[in-house]
């Protein structure tokens, strides 16, 4: 094969359920779920950092549980419900508690890592509605941020849990 030949690969029809919507795409088996979400479906909220499961930027929810989108093949994700950061925002466009909390507490600067934090924390406060400092740190231990120094993100976790509790109580 010369450099100018297009790379041809066998593709498969794949149906993904993302944020409650079904998407039919045609992809090779090696397509990572993170790339399928961004390139084939066009949901670019899921960010791709290290691409080997270390940084956590691509974290999505698979059946409600935080999962690395770069450590799954899209072809193997046809029997699960996927939630991306886009799916956290409410139908009416208002911010979810975790998104509001990041805004309130300056939980982001450049924002690159933020989608992975938001999905992780959304699931985290659903499991544990009233985390303490230590539990908040443990919740985000698998996500890297190079701007904020984490203090504001820990504050955001606590604030998100508080907003969620207020919402659940009303």
């Amino acid at each position: 094969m010369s450099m100018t030949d297009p790379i041809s690969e066998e593709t498969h029809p794949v149906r993904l359920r993302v944020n409650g919507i079904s998407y039919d795409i045609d992809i090779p088996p090696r397509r990572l779920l993170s790339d399928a979400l961004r390139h084939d479906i066009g949901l670019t909220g899921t960010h791709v950092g290290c691409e080997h499961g270390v940084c956590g930027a691509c974290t999505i929810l698979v059946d409600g549980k935080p999962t690395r989108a770069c450590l799954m093949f899209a072809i193997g994700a046809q029997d699960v419900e996927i939630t991306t950061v886009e799916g956290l925002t409410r139908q009416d466009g208002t911010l979810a508690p975790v998104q509001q909390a990041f805004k309130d507490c300056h939980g982001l600067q450049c924002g690159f890592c933020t989608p992975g934090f938001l999905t992780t924390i959304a699931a985290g406060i659903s499991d544990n509605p009233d985390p303490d400092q230590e539990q908040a740190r443990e919740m985000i231990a698998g996500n890297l941020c190079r701007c904020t120094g984490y203090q504001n993100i820990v504050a955001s976790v606590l604030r998100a849990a508080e907003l969620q509790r207020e919402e659940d109580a009303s």
Partner: protein
Amino acid sequence: MKPAPFRYERPETLDRALAALAAEPGAKVLAGGQSLIPLMSMRLSSVPLLIDINGLSDLAHITVDETGVRFGAIVRHSDLLEHGGAREVQPLIAAALAHVAHPTIRNRGTTVGSIVHADASGEMPMILCLTGGSLTVASTQGRREIAATDLFIGPLETSLEAEEIAVEAFMPALAAGSGIAYDEIARRHGDYALCGVGAVVTLDEQGRVTHARTGYVSVSETPVIVDVTECFDEGQVDERSLTAAGELALGQLDPETDIHGTSDYRAQLARSLTARVLRTAHEDARARGAQKVSA
């Protein structure tokens, strides 16, 4: 950071998975993929055919009885960690699983997959050895059971044949009168351990140590289990016996220098952690004994 092209099959029965594997030497089995997919993305592993076993619901079981805990090849770390029955019968499983990567990785990664990945810095291969467990593997020729002691033959290398799939792991129940502990030192909680140590201590009715063994992560090429019973010849857990246990263990370990720590530092961690986990396992055995008497 994209994997090379491969063909993909997602069989609906184990027999079809085994036939696919037998027909394609070099094919790889995908369960959780939390180790395999990074290796493929970094092009350290090239796979002609990927056989995805996540559709094999027969391999999703966790079965607990008085003999121990059995779990299938697609049981996620997180499900095993949260299983109350498994925690009760063999508490070493949960004690170590809490240190396996980060929760997000545990949601997808499988414990059987982690065992057959056979990374000496992985917790669960060592725990399979420390509990005296075994692995059931299947091929088109039938099934066989491999004792943990015969499973790990080198870094990332097991005694599985190319056409075999690991279908189930078994970890025996904690013996009566015993206690456990696991601890590790990592640069960041959830990262690979610089050194990890597990311990099982068994006491007689007078509270004297009758049996003690330790298991090591990240300080040898394959999981190492050391019987340190002889260090407790007077049945007491004290500075002398704990120091002796650390020295005995170090004789069988081979801590290496790498970017994360020197050989000497890892040796020191192995020494201190050996004492720490033996002490904790001893307390755990006493607490479990007391609990049993009061019950």
